[in-house]
């Protein structure tokens, strides 16, 4: 049994009504099953986020006032304001009550509602990760299938080698090197941020400014992540290349290129797609480092900052948002997988 089939087996819900079931009803049941799983995961995340971060050492009030001339009464007042003077269960009940009203509380450090902060920082992160993921996936898949088709060629050796080198690099180090070269030595790209502050650009100049700021963080993220896509694509295409149906296709007189594009690659994509979706969560996590190196005003950076203190409401908020994104992309992966692999539906 190949790895592909193993994945399908585990992804397929246990009961299939054999011949009476139409494809759509099984599909619906499958989706319903998955949705229940999603709901349970989300509820667990909400519960966990409250307790998980309270294990962190540190007294938020003491951390916040570190180095400032603050006396006992003010510390007590802050504790009261943050609700930290209440017993843990009371705090938890209040947290849940607020959560059901869509209120994530107020950040200790920023003294602003957590939901506002997340809204402010969400777009930059989505922009950065989406652009990076799109480029990394396209590049990775293209390089991977080229390399596999000409296995052992100079292109294969060079591209596999390059991919591995980039993959092995620490993200922050590679980012700093890029900064040093393009911002520090050549002065052709900005040293950080998302737009030039105070320039108040609109229209095309604004877009150009955004692209210039995006260039380095995206290059960093693509470089360290495209390797996994290309290597998986390469491996699964090599597996397909020995299949009989390719011989048949060639025998029908198809050109080599058509055999690759119309027969081999679609089949090789199956395991790759699963991996791609699973990696999206990782990409978002990787954004933490990249955002910090390039002063990118995103969620990853916000989370990183919330850890010192700890800024509990902010941590809870970002944790819930990150987890939700990952749970939902995994759900999407399940759906897409069913849709592109007809074999899954006829178990």
């Amino acid at each position, binding site marked *: 049994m190949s790895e592909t089939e193993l994945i399908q087996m585990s992804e397929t819900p246990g009961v299939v009504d054999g011949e009476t079931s139409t494809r759509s009803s099984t599909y619906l049941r499958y989706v319903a099953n998955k949705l229940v799983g999603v709901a349970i995961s989300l509820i667990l995340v909400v519960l966990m986020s409250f307790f998980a971060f309270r294990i962190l050492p540190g007294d938020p009030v003491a951390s916040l006032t570190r180095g400032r*001339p603050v006396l006992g009464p003010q510390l*007590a007042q802050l504790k009261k304001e943050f609700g930290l003077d209440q017993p843990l269960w009371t705090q938890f009940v209040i947290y849940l009550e607020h959560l059901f009203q869509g209120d994530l509380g107020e950040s200790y450090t920023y*003294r602003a509602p957590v939901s506002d902060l997340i809204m*402010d920082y969400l777009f930059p992160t989505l922009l950065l990760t989406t652009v990076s993921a799109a480029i990394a996936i396209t590049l990775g898949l293209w390089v991977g299938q080229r390399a596999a088709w000409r296995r052992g060629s100079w292109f294969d050796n060079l591209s596999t080698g390059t991919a591995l080198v980039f993959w092995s690099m620490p993200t922050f180090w590679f980012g700093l090197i890029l*900064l040093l070269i393009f911002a*520090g030595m050549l002065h052709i790209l900005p040293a950080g941020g998302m737009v030039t502050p*105070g320039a108040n650009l609109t229209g095309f100049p604004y877009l150009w400014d955004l692209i210039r700021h995006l260039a380095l963080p995206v290059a960093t993220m693509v470089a360290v992540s495209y390797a996994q896509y290309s290597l998986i694509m390469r491996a699964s295409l090599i597996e397909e290349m020995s299949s009989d149906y390719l011989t048949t296709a060639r025998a029908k007189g198809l050109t080599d290129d058509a055999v690759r594009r119309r027969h081999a690659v679609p089949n090789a994509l199956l395991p790759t797609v699963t991996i791609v979706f699973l990696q999206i969560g990782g990409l978002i996590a990787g954004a933490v480092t990249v955002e*910090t190196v390039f002063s990118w005003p995103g969620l990853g950076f916000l989370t990183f900052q919330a850890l*010192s203190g*700890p800024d509990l409401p902010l941590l809870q908020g970002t944790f819930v948002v990150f987890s939700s994104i990952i749970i939902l992309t995994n759900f999407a992966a399940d759906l897409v997988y069913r849709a592109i692999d007809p074999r899954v539906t006829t178990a």
Partner: protein
Amino acid sequence: MNPFTMLNQASFDLAQIQYESLVMPTAPDGADGPGLAEKWTVDGNTWTFELRPDLKWSDGEDLTAEDVAWNYNTIMTNPKLAISNGNLGDNLASVTAVDEDTVEIVTETPQAINPGKLYIVPKHIWADMESPETYENTEDVVGSGPFVMSAYSRGVSAHMKANPYNWRGAPKLDGIEVISYKNKDAEVLALKSGEIDWSNRLTASQFDSLAGAANIEPVETGGGRYLGLSMNVGSTTLDGTPMGDGAAVLQDVVVRKAIRQALDTQQLVDKVLNGHGWTGPEILGPPTKPYYSDYEDIVDPYSPDAANEALDNAGYTKGADGYRMDKEGKPINLRLTFDGSGAAEPQIASFIEPWLKEIGIKVTLMPQSIDQRDQERHSGNYDLTLNGWGNPIDPDYMLYINTCGSRAPAADGAGNGSADNWCDPEFDELYKQQHVELDQDKRTKLVQDALSIHYEAAVVAVLYYPAALQAYRTDRIAHVTKIQNDFTAYQTFHDLTLVSQEEGTSSSSSSGEGASWPWIVAIAALVVVAGIVTIVVIRRRQTATDRE
């Protein structure tokens, strides 16, 4: 940037430029000088401040004694709005506007500290708010300082425009763009390439990397903090109950003094700070003139030999492995906790370990997160720990955190305001006396007497006082006023003069349409990013405006 409730450094930095107080730190050494008040007198518990004539807010409204009195009364009566100003409102009995230009502040008990250090915000904006504690105050700010925030993009930048009504006259710049860099090294690159014109809170190595760079002027001023090796003298709570698990051997002052004598602090200044700092015996460093002293009559100079001799004489014999044992014959092994996230403290710890080995004391290095390290210190669970405090120019707070009354109320360490969990009634007595002494020479003597006691107790081995390091571009900024003991120099931004655009060769990429020129771009490190931006030096310092 709510001046009543702000807690993070970035907000304080921005508040400094926008709001002023009755008295303000002035060049060259940061002493109290005229601010909104032209002059003041003090008589027992009563301080009378005369405001400058014709003061105006940035929206053109009059700034009067009424505004000042409202601010003070607000922090005295509404605990939610007393968050940012620390102990400023603690000793106030009443604050009244005698007439349009006169404010009278009456304190509960006499105090040497000038009470006129509260940022004054406009009553006509704040007084009618439903819940001023939640007002974010980031757009169209009305203030009295040289610049006020007109636009703000969270985590990105703040746009400050000149306030033509500032009492010094309109600033020489149209505005300032304060940009957030999360990566200090990137910030330095941006300064070198002319993307920005000013950068502060640099590390020693970043500062040195700018030496000799074209068109860049490094600025080094007294930073007003100390970093010390705190030794657990036997921590106790407010009522004297022992707490924590400090090594018993450290309760012997001979051991503590020996440890202090074994530390080559000048080497730390040279190696860790690249020479950008000073070393000295006590918690108030050279920038805190006139209170600084070298205590030459009582100081124990660096000498591992003398330390070894003292330990031998006290009966701490060395075992076969060269490490000493305590008086029960058990090997001494001290834990050294420090902030492992920054660059400086791990480096310092790696110096201390061999130095103490030289006097036969074994040390186990324990890097921790800064939050954990503080929590352990608050509850007395440490032997040795690196611990630094910022000292505002007035020494009162630095002494206060060493009084018995600042200790933890309970053994869990919550609400502990003590620097080193130490307590000495004699020290407290001198603290109280200097707190009310208005004669400068007498007060200086009282402070130094108190610190002599502190030195003799060897509670903390002061390692160094780091300098405050900044740099600016000379092709954009022509004139800067330095204030000793002011970390950000934002205090003096009203005084910045730009090189004219024709002469300048700014390569700033941001002279976009619609932006008025000339721009100066300054930076606020809006955040302290552990591991990347963090320098311990930043974490605990106080600018001259962090009022005591």
